């Protein structure tokens, strides 16, 4: 099969008989009960306070056990290249890539929604002309990915991947389909809350980040060790979009709003670099 998929043929899962699936069956997958996982989460939360980022060592998320550094992080100030970010622009991203509902020959199934918000730095400066990428499951909770074994239907009109460039005020906007929750193998009957993966760049490469946006009031929040790896409720709330009726449009889409704050820029800003002040 050719790798050159430039035609609009819709998502296809490759039938690759030589595919080595040994890593699909995650050695960290367990048959632990939700009660076990929830009790472990509670124990950790009870002894934590005020954390702003997830723990890289979070045993209820079984795959984190062998994949987190155990030695101290090395504190340092950024130098040279680290004070800059790669430049992206309209050469890199076509305007249509921010609309995930027009990538196929027909309309994808599910709830059409828009998500909009700003990318800001710690000083409230908008991050302009920067790349924002998203990827997500479809309205059935299925990814276009050969490692996704969830027996829910693919949508021939939905790839679940989008890109955009922030505008002069730091705003991004995507039109998409609301993703569904999906099962995973961390423990028995494990389900991820519905989410959209976001990838972000700032003005310094030290601000580079990948995260997940969630939907308000998801009943799966308390059960999910990935969301709960952030031990503080205030910090977890920063990943949850708000329903915004001003982003919804008449007879077309529901709307969500979500601002993203990157770690403070380490560069010394010159007068004229920004009009935020």
């Amino acid at each position, binding site marked *: 099969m050719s*790798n050159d*998929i*430039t035609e609009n043929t819709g998502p296809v899962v490759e039938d690759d008989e030589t595919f080595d699936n040994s*890593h699909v069956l995650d050695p960290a997958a367990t048959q632990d009960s939700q009660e076990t996982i929830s009790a472990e989460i509670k124990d950790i939360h009870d002894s934590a306070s005020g*954390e*702003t*980022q*997830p*723990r*890289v*060592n979070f045993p209820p*998320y079984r795959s*984190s056990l*062998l*994949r987190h*550094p155990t*030695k101290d*992080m*090395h504190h*340092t*100030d950024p130098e*040279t*290249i*680290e004070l800059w970010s*790669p*430049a*992206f*622009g309209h*050469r*890199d991203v076509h305007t249509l890539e921010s609309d995930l509902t027009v990538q196929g020959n027909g309309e994808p199934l599910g709830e059409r929604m828009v998500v909009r*918000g700003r990318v*800001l730095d710690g*000083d*409230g*400066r908008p991050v302009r002309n920067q790349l924002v990428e998203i*990827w997500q*499951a479809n309205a059935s909770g299925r*990814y*276009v*990915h050969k490692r*996704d074994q969830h027996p829910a239907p693919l949508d021939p009109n939905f790839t679940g991947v989008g890109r955009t460039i922030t505008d002069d005020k730091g705003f991004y906007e995507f039109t998409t389909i609301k993703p569904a929750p999906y099962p995973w193998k961390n423990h028995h009957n494990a389900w991820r809350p519905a989410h959209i*993966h976001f990838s972000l760049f700032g003005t310094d*490469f*030290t601000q*580079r980040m*990948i*995260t*997940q946006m969630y939907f308000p009031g998801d009943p799966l929040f308390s059960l999910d060790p*990935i*969301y709960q790896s*952030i031990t503080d409720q205030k910090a977890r709330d*920063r*990943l*949850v979009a708000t329903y915004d009726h001003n982003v919804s449009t008449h007879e077309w889409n529901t709307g969500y709003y*979500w601002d*993203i*704050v*990157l*770690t*403070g820029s380490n560069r010394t800003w010159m007068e004229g670099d920004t009009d935020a002040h």
Partner: protein
Amino acid sequence: MRIDQNQLAAARDGSEKLVPTPGQTIGPFFGYASGYENVHIPFRDGQHLVNPASPKAVRLTGTVYDGAGDPIPDAMIEIWQADENGQIPQETGSLVRDGWTFTGWGRATADNVGTYTFSTVNPGPTEEGKAPFIHVVVFARGLMNKLHTRIYLPEDTVALEKDALLSSVEADRRQTLIAEREADGTLRFDIHLQGEQETVFLQFPGIEYPVHD
């Protein structure tokens, strides 16, 4: 969440910084090495900062390992570097490479045996006498937040000796930040997320990595 006008005003006048949005794992479904470059975040030629056929192309490769010494097949590595003259690129076009413009940034996924490969150039020193390095950020399923590190070129031993960051790292771990140069010019740099040979990861001001004792 929404940053309201009061928070924004306080951040802009410097009275209270905005708290950064937490990171989350990249998860398993960000893409894989072949076939889907146009529908996942790994993109066509993401790993080719320069055409591998170019006479100046350098292969940068290595394996990502977990704490048991097993390769990690679902990691994504990005590099960001100066060009061979030490200039910091500010050209667009990384996602749609034209074959001529050096943008300094690349993205590669680990393959089924945990190996990533870039085609790039040796970065030059950004200042006279400074040890040249490539900046790296690591994402993986099972890894809750991004990890930054540096790949130093091994040749300029005088500059390496003087380098402020390397000097501040314990002597027995310094080597985890320096690539090996193979006979054909290949730079080899393995990444160990955990264990005996754990790579030194960098924490820059403004981000927290909470640790539970």
